[in-house]
């Protein structure tokens, strides 16, 4: 705590006449800093990582963040006195230096429940991240985590299907689901595209997937894609006796376009549609409502998130985005692979998975979870691991993420030397043999490679996959790891 830095003159001014005299006050004098504040169960709590400009006192910086993300403007306004203004003021109540990161501070801020519109992520985000990130007294700011109170959680409908009901609809239990993104992501005609989908599904995958930037380009209009893909899906379903799906990306220029595409996907009997994170919060919530009405699984690709989630000192942690997405209501979201080609420290990534799947998320500092979060029975999101993973990593993936995840092997299926079906077989065999071994009590983390090698003796597609990719790994240092004190701070 930095209470020792605090000077008596800089605390909230209690005398109303002095407080509302025209002029400029420090934020901490205006009532946005209260070291004694005890957060209420109904408060939304935020943890910001702030880097104040040189010479700016960290407590004043924290108070400024609280002010600018709630009621404050740069100067005193008498019209505050027409309101019960103290309850509208967010309150910074704790500031601590970030361990091993000089110049950075963690600031805890509490927001009263009256500040937010029921069931609106757009409104919550407009407050919490609306203005503060460009605020001049700060060099940088990052929203690390948020605790949404149960009272507010209950105003959101959450995932339209949820991972439990998804499994019941698909009739797939006790193992991760398998998917692949159709490649090349751009340029295939509808007819060629459907070929890839058919081969992957018949070979043994549960899902194929449009990529984030497959919408309705000149080489393949959306209707054509949907028609060919659904023929592939149904044909593969008949060939295997399993429910199969392909995420039809309905992202378009307008929400009206998206409804139109979603309706056509439904008419063709697709079990799942897809949207990109770049469509924005209101559209996500609208498509979630549509999916709920139409028994549709809603897949979300987190397109664009790396622009603001990756750097530790500025932006928003993906764990916050994941929480907002669960509230907004998606059934699948991409949450990282830890072992693949895209950014992700394993424990930090596990934190995102917990946010998707927990009934109650406990504070877990090594995983970057700073608050307890009661999900109030909100449905659970199926996390998706996608990007640069292959069959040779199956033991690591199962060990890191457990059963409730979609493992997506795009290149790892379609790039298989024996063809797409062979690629799908390799992945499915690797998955099943690893689940079986884990259930039998084997130590898959260490014995995994041996378990795969043995299975490959009777499965040449798996042998080919291991020969092709067995040694591939992406070992780069992560830019986004959790910075936490060895002695845990209290969750509030």
């Amino acid at each position, binding site marked *: 705590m930095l209470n020792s830095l605090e000077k008596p003159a800089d605390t909230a001014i209690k005398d109303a006449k002095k407080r509302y005299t025209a002029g400029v006050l420090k934020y901490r004098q205006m009532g946005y800093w209260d070291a004694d504040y005890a957060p209420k169960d109904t408060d939304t709590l935020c943890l910001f990582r702030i880097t104040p400009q040189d010479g700016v006192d960290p407590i004043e910086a924290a108070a400024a963040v609280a002010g600018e993300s709630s009621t404050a403007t740069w100067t005193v306004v008498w019209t505050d006195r027409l309101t019960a203004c103290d309850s509208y003021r967010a309150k910074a109540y704790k500031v601590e230096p970030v361990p091993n990161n000089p110049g950075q501070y963690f600031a805890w801020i509490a927001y009263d429940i009256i500040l937010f519109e029921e069931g609106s992520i757009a409104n919550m985000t407009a407050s919490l991240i609306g203005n503060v990130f460009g605020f001049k007294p700060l060099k940088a700011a990052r929203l690390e985590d948020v605790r949404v109170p149960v009272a507010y959680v209950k105003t959101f409908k959450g995932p339209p299907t949820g991972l439990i009901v998804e499994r019941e609809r698909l009739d797939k239990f*006790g193992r991760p689901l398998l998917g692949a993104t159709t490649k090349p992501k751009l340029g295939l005609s509808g007819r060629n595209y459907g070929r890839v989908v058919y081969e992957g599904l018949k070979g043994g995958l549960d899902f194929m997937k449009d990529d984030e930037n497959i919408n309705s380009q000149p080489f393949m209009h959306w*209707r054509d894609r949907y028609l060919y893909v659904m023929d592939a899906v149904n044909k593969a379903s*008949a060939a*295997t*006796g399993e429910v199969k799906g392909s995420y039809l990306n309905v992202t378009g220029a307008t929400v009206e376009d998206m409804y139109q595409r979603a309706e056509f996907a439904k008419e063709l009997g697709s079990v799942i549609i897809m949207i990109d994170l770049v469509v924005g919060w209101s559209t996500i919530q609208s498509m979630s409502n549509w999916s709920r009405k139409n028994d549709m699984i809603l897949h979300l690709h987190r397109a664009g998130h790396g622009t603001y989630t990756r750097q530790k000192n500025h932006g928003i942690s993906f764990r916050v985005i994941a929480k907002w997405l669960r509230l907004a209501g998606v059934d699948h979201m991409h949450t990282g692979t830890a072992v693949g080609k895209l950014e992700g420290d394993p424990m930090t990534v596990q934190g995102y998975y917990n946010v998707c799947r927990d009934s109650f998320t406990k504070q877990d500092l090594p995983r970057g979870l700073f608050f307890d979060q009661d999900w109030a029975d909100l449905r659970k999101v199926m996390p998706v691991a996608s990007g640069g993973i292959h069959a040779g990593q199956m033991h690591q993936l199962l060990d890191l993420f457990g059963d409730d995840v979609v493992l997506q092997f795009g290149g790892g299926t379609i790039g298989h030397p024996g063809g797409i079906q062979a690629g799908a*077989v390799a992945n499915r065999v690797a998955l099943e043999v690893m689940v079986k071994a884990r259930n039998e009590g084997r130590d898959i983390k260490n014995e995994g490679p041996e378990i795969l090698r043995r299975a490959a003796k009777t499965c040449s597609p798996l042998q080919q996959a291991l020969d092709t990719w067995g040694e591939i790994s992406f070992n780069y240092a992560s830019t986004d790891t959790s910075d936490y004190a060895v002695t845990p701070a209290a969750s509030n």
Partner: protein
Amino acid sequence: MMTNPVGRITQGQFSYLPDLTDEEISMQIQYGLNKGYAWSVEYTDDPHPRNTYWEMFGQPMFDLKDAAGVLMELQHCRKTFPQHYIRLMAFDSTRGIETIVMSFIVNRPDKEPGFGLVRQEAAGRTIRYTVHSYATDRPERERGSGGA
């Protein structure tokens, strides 16, 4: 005979692996029991992907904590319906889960008839699809004891 790479219906957790031995099945049962799941045995001759309700071979075994006992039920079912599909399912009643958490096929007919895809052409290049179980082409009573 089906034309997919493993030549059979691929539902459940382990259809891509060689058939599990009884000893291997017992290990899976034990894993479920250790987690507090309840096992049940179900059978059908129509494994259509949307045929959710296979026949229950008795009630789910909520109170049976012994893998050998579950395996005995399975063997009883196999003896009664040797040419049916039989699956073992584990149920987890934990709040927020309350669903099946394991499911795998432990018996199959010698010949798996598979499915046909019926396409009905509709307006605007749309096609309506029906997955048809060849197994259901004969009346229920003629398909072996118990139907389903």
